[in-house]
């Protein structure tokens, strides 16, 4: 297969969610060729046609058999925002949580609508991507619920009434 054909086929298979730079495709192919994972031959027009080698198949098999690594500590603006909201005393923490929850649920509603369309079009690759987005958003909302429950428990333990979302009560203050 030609490098450009690879690019278009990859993008079609991943529902255009992961666009490739054609230059990057050729750089990667050269590196794979150097490592003996693909072989290349020129066709009648002098264009390189690539083919996977036995070593390439072994490497591919290893890739299928290995789990995708998780980011150990993903950059979490939201977590940082909550920590500073609590420490600064400048923000209503329950309000911050609720505002984020509403925004995330709204995004989740949008993805869910896209899923309905993908389902009726039989667009399986796109559907799998959207499912991934749905579960990520769900995880965030559940984490927000957990944060809220933890804060409420801390308030109760401190003898204060739990904070209600959207009210202008002062934020949880921590003397440092």
């Amino acid at each position, binding site marked *: 297969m030609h490098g450009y054909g690879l690019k278009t086929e990859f993008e079609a298979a991943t529902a255009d969610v992961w666009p490739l730079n054609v230059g990057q495709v050729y750089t990667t192919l050269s590196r794979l060729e150097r490592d003996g994972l693909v072989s290349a031959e020129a066709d009648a027009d002098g264009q390189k046609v690539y083919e996977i080698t036995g070593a390439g198949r072994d490497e591919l098999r290893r890739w299928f058999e290995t789990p995708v690594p998780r980011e150990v500590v993903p950059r979490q603006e939201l977590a940082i925002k909550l920590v500073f909201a609590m420490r600064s005393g400048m923000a209503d923490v329950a309000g911050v949580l609720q505002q984020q929850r*509403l925004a995330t*649920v709204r995004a*989740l509603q949008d993805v869910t609508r*896209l899923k309905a369309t993908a389902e009726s079009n039989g667009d399986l690759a796109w559907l799998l991507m959207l499912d991934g987005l*749905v579960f990520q958003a769900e995880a965030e909302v*559940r984490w927000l619920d957990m944060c*809220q429950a933890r804060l409420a428990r801390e308030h109760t333990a401190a003898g204060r009434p739990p904070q209600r979302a*959207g009210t202008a009560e002062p934020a949880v203050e921590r003397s440092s």
Partner: protein
Amino acid sequence: MTVLDIDRAGRVYGSGPLGVSALDDVSLRVRAGEFVAVMGPSGSGKSTLLRLAGGLDRPTSGRVRLAGRDLASLDEAGLAAVLRQQIGFVFQEANLLAGLTAAENVALALELDGVKPRAALAGADGLLGSLGLGAVRGRFPAQLSGGEQQRVAIARAVAGGRSLLLADEPTGALDALTGESVMGLLRERCAAGCALVLATHNVRHAAWADRVVFLADGRLAGETGPAAGPECLLGSVR
């Protein structure tokens, strides 16, 4: 057209200093064809709201109107008749009658509306067929999967063209994909003009709704407005 109008409803259990407020000054309007999800932690008032909406409980303050009619103005018999004709309930457990087939379970709801048995069974068959359940019409509940049972329960809840469907965690015991098919079925009923209120902990299922309303400590704590449209999202992933 507004099907359900909950107007500043409150529900206090007990009285005096021992009274516990389960719901406090909550308003919610649901139009025909609209799907509203109600979310909130345990004890936030979701079930109380659903019970008030379904006439299973009366508010201690405020009003609940169904198709413009104040439920408080009806006597017990009148209320029972209105609820039977207008409202379908779906709970976490399908609660199908074990001795009846899927079609007979659905037909029973129509017979309670006064439809003759033969016509009720024909109506039930037609409804199950339209919901993609034609193949299980003759099976007994024990012969159905959890997802099939729940879909038959939804068929029973919507039989007779009820205008309001109230669902309390209808997907609780189902796996993710089966739960999704149940949500798809509920969504279709909305497209057919039914108003739907879903109380759930599951944000994935709530996201099927047109609006998601949040309760906290018996009060409204926010709601997602109309959809922003998929473009804003696609900008970030495509």
